[in-house]
């Protein structure tokens, strides 16, 4: 067995180790993406609103 395949086999516990790490990456990754997307959306909404109010004040 090659060294990489040997390592990936995790001493016969590959399914357990990789599923635990995969699940962690998925959960933490999804949380990070959702948090950043919410921030960008909130900032865009606030900026658009501020610009709209500025226009209204001018007219």
């Amino acid at each position, binding site marked *: 067995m090659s060294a990489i395949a040997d390592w990936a086999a*995790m001493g016969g*516990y590959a399914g*357990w180790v990789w599923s*635990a*790490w995969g699940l*962690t990456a998925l*959960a933490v990754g999804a*949380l990070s993406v959702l*948090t950043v997307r919410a921030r960008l959306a909130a900032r865009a909404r*606030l900026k658009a609103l501020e610009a709209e109010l500025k226009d209204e004040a001018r007219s």
Partner: protein
Amino acid sequence: MWSYLANPERFERMARVLVPALWALAAVLFLIGIPWALVFSPPDYQQSDTVRIMYVHVPAAWLSMAAYAGMGIASFVYFVWRHNLADLAARALAPAGAVFAFVCLATGSIWGRPMWGAWWVWDARLTSMLVLFLLFLGYIALRAAIEDERLSARSGAILAMAGLINLPVIKFSVDWWNTLHQPASVLRFDGPTIHASQLWPLLIMALAFTMLLGALALTAMRTQIARRRADMLLRRREQRLEAEELKAGELKS
């Protein structure tokens, strides 16, 4: 000190510098910690390579508890001093805490099946951790269910403070009761019992997750500040339009 920190503009200035720094630090620490944990650290003499699950399970456990502690303290500050920023902090920590608690429970379960022969046992450590996860979900649901911002914040603060009692129960459950879950091997009064070859990657991973939690919580706080500011501007516009209509009506009559 609370008043100094409670200024939203000061917070925004601080967050603008701190958030990118925390993301960058988390990325660097993960780049060191992940290969160390998955490749360079040795397998355990009893658990073989399943010990590598510990490098995500243990930091997730620590950080879910740290997130709850932060939530409880922020809730106390809000409850006593009525600083809105403290309430925002508590609210921002809840989703991240819930995800970390879930990761802790799920990875523990995945480790438990080959090592204990069971996905789940109702022992004191596992049960108290499940209670922590449910407390996060309860807090999130409670905050979402109450529309009145002040009432929502106060009710959430009471729940978060009451739930603090669960933290020492989780920590000392392995000492107070006869549990299947192993006792502490890092945070012990007499020092860690875990070998340095496994302790260091564990600490690096824990630090990486800590930076990530900080970045996520501060980002979520900024989201809420932007939302509240937008809502306030909309309310002001509505009030102005109503006043203008009233004025126009008066002039006509």
